[in-house]
């Protein structure tokens, strides 16, 4: 599809990615185990209210590898929050496959679900107030998941780890403050520390920078990247923020409950010897061969109802259905 070369936004992005992959490989026990950390296949979620059915996910496919930092973008109502709810174990899909590590999210017993939340995943929500308990200090908030999970190491051990994590995300100086005494950015960075308190393999963040200004958002995202690189945690961020989408290697777009397209940024050594990021956008083909055309493509050729497909040796042609095949050719 399209490929554009761009100046690296964060010069060390490629390095960070490599480090994250290395850490993830260490945790998983080998590079060959990196594939398919999160797998969604034909995921369907239907809400029923008073006899009205709303299909929030209609056969979504997604594979995320260990140590990846992935952004999921999509318009309001596209189903990205539903996806995140399912992946967090807060919601159960109606049909399909949803697997995170060795956890099958369709059949989680209460005990499994608990251990999933305690050992496998961490969450960050958009509302800063939802991430932290208002009556606990930042450090106590970080200690809370460890206590709930009954982590060993004793009080002192938990305290030390909490302080380390806060330092890692850059808010060590606020350890003894309550959320009310923190700025929005500080709160979200604390939330990041809370989310990884139990050393999860996956971190889900739902619009973590949604309520923040650009600069603060960048700080929070920096914290996420640090966590990804230093701890090898797979990070999935749902966001609207184009700035965020530009800071990750892989961006997955969801439309109408399906994965529509993907942007991958790869680092390569340019002609001048410096690293540059190459951003390529792909449409996603599902197992049964379905794919969505990007909206601008559809609009540009006013494609409607039917299209013609031509199989060429190295590509597939898509042409408007109401024209003769030879009148106007366009590669899609």
């Amino acid at each position: 599809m399209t490929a554009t070369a761009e100046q690296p936004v964060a010069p060390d992005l490629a390095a960070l990615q490599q480090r994250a992959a290395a850490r993830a490989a260490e945790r998983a026990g080998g590079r060959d185990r990196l594939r398919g950390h999160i797998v969604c296949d034909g995921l369907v979620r239907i809400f029923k209210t008073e006899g009205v059915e709303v299909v929030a996910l209609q056969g979504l496919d997604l594979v995320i590898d260990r140590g990846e930092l992935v952004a999921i973008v999509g318009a309001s109502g596209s189903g990205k929050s539903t996806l995140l709810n399912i992946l967090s174990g807060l919601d159960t899909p109606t049909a399909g496959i949803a697997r995170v590590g060795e956890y099958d999210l369709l059949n989680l017993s209460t005990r499994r679900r608990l251990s999933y939340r305690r050992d496998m995943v961490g969450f960050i929500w958009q509302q800063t107030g939802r991430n932290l308990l208002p009556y606990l200090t930042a450090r106590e908030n970080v200690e809370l998941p460890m206590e709930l999970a009954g982590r060993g190491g004793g009080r002192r051990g938990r305290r030390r780890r909490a302080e380390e994590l806060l330092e890692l995300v850059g808010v060590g100086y606020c350890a003894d403050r309550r959320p009310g005494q923190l700025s929005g950015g500080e709160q979200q960075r604390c939330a990041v520390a809370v989310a990884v308190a139990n050393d999860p393999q996956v971190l889900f963040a739902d619009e973590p920078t949604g309520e923040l200004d650009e600069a603060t958002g960048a700080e929070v995202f920096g914290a996420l990247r640090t966590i990804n690189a230093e701890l090898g945690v797979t990070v999935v961020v749902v966001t609207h923020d184009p700035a965020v989408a530009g800071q990750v290697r892989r961006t997955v777009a969801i439309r109408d409950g399906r994965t529509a397209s993907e942007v991958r940024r790869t680092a390569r050594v340019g002609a001048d010897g410096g690293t540059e990021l190459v951003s390529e956008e792909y449409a996603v083909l599902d197992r049964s061969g379905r794919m969505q055309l990007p909206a601008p493509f559809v609009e540009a050729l006013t494609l409607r109802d039917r299209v013609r497909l031509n199989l060429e040796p190295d590509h597939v042609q898509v042409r408007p259905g109401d024209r003769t095949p030879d009148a106007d050719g366009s590669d899609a």
Partner: protein
Amino acid sequence: MLSVGAAARRVRAFGGQFLLLAVLTMTATLLVSGVPRLVNWYAGQGLHQFLADRPAQERDLTYSAAPLTATANGTSLMEAYRSDLETIRAGMPPRVRELVAQRWFSAQTEPSRVVGRDLAARNLTVDLGLRVVPDIREAATLVEGRWPDRGPVPSGKPVQVALAAQVAGQFNLRVGSRLTLKGPDTPGVSLPPTPIAVVGLFAPRDGGDGIWDALPPLLRVVEPLGDGQPFVGFAVVDEAVLDRQAAIGWSLRLSWRYRLSADIDVRALDQILAGLQEMSRRSAGRTFVQGLDVPLRQFIAGMDAARTVLAVIAAGTLATLGGLVLLATGSAVRRRRGEFALLRARGGGPAAGAGRSLAESLLVVPPAAVLGWLAGTLAPGGAGDTLGLAVALTVLVTLALPVATLTAPAEVTGRRDGLRLRPSTRRLGVEGGLLLLAALAVVLLRQRGLESGEVDPLLVSVPVLLAVAAALVAIRLYPLPLRLLSRLAARARGSVAFLGTARAGRAQATAPLVVVVLAIATAAFSAVVAAGVEASRDRAATAVVPGDALLLGERFAPDTRTELERVSGVRVAAPLAEEPAQRLATDALGTDARIGDVTVLLVDAAALDRVVAAAGRDPGLPRTLVTAGPGGPAPAVVSPAVAADLAGAGLAGSAFATVQGQRYEFRVTGQAETFPLLTGGGDRFVVLPWQALPAREYAVVPTGFVLAGEDLDVARLREVGTEGQSRFQHGSAVSARERNLPVEVSTWTTVRRELGEGGPNGVLVFGFVAGAVGGTVLGLLAIAFTVLAGARARGQVLSRLRTLGLSRGQGRGLLLIELSPLVGAAVLTGALVGALLPVLLNPVLGLATFTRGTPVRVAFEPALVAGVVALGAVALGFAVAVEALNNRRLRLGEALRLGEES
């Protein structure tokens, strides 16, 4: 994080919620601990008053031994028997024993004929008994002479006796009088007469002292029962005298009398009654006489009825408190839903939130419960056995928060706006089941009645069930007219009415409304029953005194009426003549009609009607009596039983009733179950209009008058009545020996006051006041909850509408329109249930105990409507105030996305 410190921190963080929970818990345990004490205290006061109003002799327990003849072995019988005073007491059941305040032993001979010069001088026939009263020297003072010598009577000397001064005066005896006492008439035995010398006269230090209450009395002479019968009196002698008399064969009567204190613990009444029964069964050869059990049973019956009413009120109040606790916990859990979701997401187990809630509850609820309980113990009166209830309540309230946390949906997924618009089938099923259950409970209760003396769980649950059922119906029904109204309002000008009715018609607050209805129903029940009892007491008093005062005597001179009307303040007097136990006749000659005895009441109905009008009472006089005039058989009102008998004998058109020897013809023109002035019981009476009777030479004279007037001087009325009575006695052809006939004057006010005094009335009034006030206060609190439950949604709408140009005034109007149906429906439903409850429960409540048997009619009270309207207005004002306060806190109008955190 289950440490105490952390829990305490959370309690502080959510201080308001926990304060509310603590206050509710405290109120509940305060009520559970304090109310039974207050009830016991009021009941104790009532019992004390009740017993104090009755003669003290009722509290006497008397053992007496059958006449006993001693063997002559020289031992002192008196001493031996006197010591039994303690033995008997020790053998009493403990509850009775500890009440014994005073005790007396006495021994006496049977009164036998006494003769002497001083008696003969007055031509008196006297029987005299000799009595030993051990403590008389402390209880009486000598007026003249000395006390009889102690020790054995020297042979040949007369027996020394002391007499009460009044008795001596009546018998014409003085110190130094010599008498001869004949032996009692014992068949086959001839006992020698005993010479007697009066050596002293005494007067009681305190005539009311229980020592003088032994029968026959020592201080008075017993008047002869008929012609040729003797006067009977008693003289005091030394113990040795009776020992000697017994030795020579006189039979003695011994009595051990115990007076119980009037300070009886209400809680021990049952045990005391059981004790008395046991004493009657095991009197060990002695005769046991007591009169205490009847009034005590009477009091217990009243108390039981009061307790029943109180139980209904208490159940309503406690259920309301329980509902408020549920609302409080529900609102706390709603507010902290995000926190619990976070806990779960962060790896908290399913019970993590509940565990933390439990820790918080344990920190707050039990201490509050203990505080409430302790505060309750400050109330006067003995403790009730409600500790178990308090503990159960505390446990329930403590568990309420964790359970609510556990059952609350952790995370709401999907759309919330579509919820609750239509109730689910399951919900409707549950509600229908509840309605059915309430109806069944009412039917069952009415069919089964009550077990007296216990708090019936069915009775207690019926009002709560009924209120809840009514609330559910109201919740389903009240939006319907609103939706219709909103359709109409949509066409009208202005948007406020439409918006208000449209939103009110889709209101979602159900649970709080149930609690409001419960609270208001409790208040209304208290008020309606109180009003019903008050009105019935008014009627009961009016039935006794259908005017302002009633004068009753033997017979009055006819001109007494004019004399009475001359007394200042009296406006009208109506004469009446009552003759109980008369035979009806079929003709003027007096041929017996062969139907049962009747009470005949002659009343000047026209005058009585004026009296009734002047006094402003409504005893329901039959108009046929009032308008009756002379000529033909007098139109009479008779009781249904008599009417049936007369009709059966074919005498309904003409029968004859006798009053003071005069026979009057009457015909039955009306029937009445009861008639004022005839409250002495009995369902057989004939009432004749005096003004319609033919004039006779020997006219019937009045036996009483009903008066109307202001500021009546009771003493003056009695005086005039007594004069009228003596004029009748002297004015007739044959003047009898003047008898000391009392004239009874009772005023409506005193009769009415007596009806509302003493016995269980204190408890009842307390219950009504507490129920009405408590119900109202809790109702307002529940309304605050109702308002707050929907405040967020309303605030959001108002906030959005503000941005669309809604003015501040229109906002207030919208609020008022939205809240009035909710508050109105709640208050109205509560009042309806409260008014309906007494009607449904009246047969089992036994309220007639409080009106001396006059059945309590719970009727529609116009005052109730006014009260409901006032309460509704107050509630609405309160609701608007709560909402306004809440809106100010939410900074309404300043933030656009109010309360939309997600």
